[in-house]
């Protein structure tokens, strides 16, 4: 009956060009679920050579307005007490912001000059915390005078530090005054983070129930929930797998474990050695989470035999059940 109804619906919607929605949306979805069910929710294989830690933590450009369009960015996403955040802005006749910051900067064209560029830092309540001028004078945060990039630097004051384990999102409103007096405004932001724990720099690895367990030592200063995420790469730095773990921790030193599921290594036809390419510890007691730095520990795992890793699909019950129901509805 469902198929009949769907067929009638499709018939009614087909255009003269003969276009139709793919008939098996449910089948595609079910296939996705079956593929994902091979791995646990806490570890997955990276097939696109993209490290999610890098992808999510590389600052991007925020742009707004008509030409010349004002674009702004910061030197990072999260900062801690005493650290300095560099604020950057540019006016450009074209938009070249298709990718992350590194790509966007490489594609800059048609830069315009401004009479003045100033930035205002506000919190979520709308309170102004700081105001500063951005300059194109080659000093401080500005690398090259006269290149059309305006920069300024703000050091995060201790008085504004959030409580341990917490973070505050800060908005940066940047205004550029053009030669004719018109203004362009763009809005970016960053996080003032006060992580409640840190990675000590000690790592170790071993086999655990057919998976590769990489452990990181954590020093907890403030009780709370902590989330650890790490990317495993080959020795050439190619991202291969990602794993995460989270749990409440009391003050003191603890080992947190990242379990890279064994089937990943069978699909890669490799048992290592691998490198723990990047890792980060997040204080996840409250939102917004207090982001910790992304570190490159360089820990190299021991050499294992492929046969020591499980080659069995994990078989996530919830995904397989969802796929079964979708198949039943087709």
């Amino acid at each position, binding site marked *: 009956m469902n198929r009949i109804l769907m067929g009638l619906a499709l018939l009614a919607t087909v255009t003269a060009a003969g276009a139709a929605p793919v008939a098996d949306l449910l089948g595609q979805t079910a296939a996705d679920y079956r593929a994902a069910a091979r791995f646990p929710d806490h570890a997955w294989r990276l097939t696109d050579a993209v490290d999610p830690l890098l992808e999510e933590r590389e*600052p991007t450009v925020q742009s707004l307005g008509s030409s010349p369009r004002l674009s702004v960015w910061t030197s990072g996403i999260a900062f801690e007490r005493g650290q300095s955040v560099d604020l950057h802005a540019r006016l450009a006749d074209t938009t070249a912001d298709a990718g992350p910051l590194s790509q966007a900067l490489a594609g800059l064209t048609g830069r315009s000059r401004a009479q003045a560029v100033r930035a205002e830092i506000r919190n979520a309540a709308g309170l102004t915390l700081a105001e500063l001028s951005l300059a194109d004078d080659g000093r401080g945060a500005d690398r090259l005078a006269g290149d059309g990039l305006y920069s300024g630097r703000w050091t995060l004051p201790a008085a504004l530090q959030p409580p341990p384990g917490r973070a505050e999102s800060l908005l940066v409103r940047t205004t550029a005054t053009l030669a004719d007096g018109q203004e362009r405004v763009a*809005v970016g932001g960053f996080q003032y983070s006060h992580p409640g724990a840190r990675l000590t720099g000690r790592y170790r690895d071993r086999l655990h129930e057919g998976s590769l367990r990489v452990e990181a030592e954590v020093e907890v200063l403030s009780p709370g929930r902590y989330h650890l995420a790490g990317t495993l790469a080959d020795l050439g730095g190619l991202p291969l797998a990602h794993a995460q773990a989270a749990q409440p921790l009391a003050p003191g030193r603890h080992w947190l474990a990242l379990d890279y599921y064994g089937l990943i290594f069978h699909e890669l036809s490799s048992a290592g050695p691998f490198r723990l390419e990047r890792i980060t510890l997040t204080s996840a007691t409250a*939102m917004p989470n207090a982001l910790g730095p992304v570190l490159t520990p360089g820990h190299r795992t021991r050499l294992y035999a492929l046969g020591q890793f499980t080659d069995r699909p994990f078989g996530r019950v919830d995904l397989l059940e969802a796929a079964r129901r979708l198949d039943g509805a087709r």
Partner: protein
Amino acid sequence: MFWNRCGRWLAGVVVGLSAWSAQAAPCLIFVHGKQTDTNTFTSYTAARNYWIKDGGDFIRTATKGFATSYYVVGYNGTNAYFEAQAAGEVANEIVNATNGGADGGGRRCAQSFANGGTFWVIAHSMGSTVMDFILGNNDSSDPNYNYNGPYNTVAARIALVMAVGGAHRGSEGADAVCGQSSGSCNFAASFIQSCDTATFYLRSADDVQVRGFSNAPARTVWLTGGYEAIFGASACLSGEDDGVVQYASIFACAGSANASYNNGNVCTSKQESSGFRNLDAAHENHDDERNDVDSDTRKAIPGGIWTCGGVPCAPDTTVQSAMTTARFISTLY
């Protein structure tokens, strides 16, 4: 007499088939977008009316004239997407729907999850951001697991999400409002109005984006959205947009949330390593997307769902000349 009997028999068949169809079809759960007040949280009528304009009713059309069962969620659309009256409320209501409970208007899904029901979430605008947070924090290893509601149960019970004009990467409209932008960038859109808590966390800055606080969605999020400009507002947004949300966000793109995309090149590389898939694009603005008044052109996009002659349609191909998003969704089940 004969025709009377035939009529009654046919009516019986139709009613029977409709009931059978309602049981076999998914229950549609509707999650609205950003609000300028708390009305949709406190009033079922307000939540229901979110989907209606000038007699056009998204829910009526998407449910094929109410032949398919549905449930309308109402949450506090002035809160940040992760707060208890947003993500927490939505999660609890979805679980209620899958338990067979009634929404504020007495509507309930034809079959509970325990009785074999399937459930699709239809989310508009900020509703999609809320769903990203819930479905990306459904496992105990996720950073914000069950932060303020039964996210794990939601993920286990829903089949998929249809995200319409979703603010997955924030909204440049929110940037403009929070930046008190002037001139043509001054957004009059009724969706935003002020830089309240919801708007503050819907900006396109990296530090507030949902992807930084969640993992890949545990269920597939199918993406569609509009490319009809809103005069003035769209001039400030990057690439194609629906007047409030830019394509990079509607289609959950990796890279910059301000990247310029159109129907020919919108991304297939997503903000997470899995869980997002493209459907198509419509000549609708942000308002049109959530009601049934603008029956307009639909376009194929890269990685999208439309086929032409048995193969995927070339991006930017016009695949329909007059079809609302509500009608489109009704053809998918």
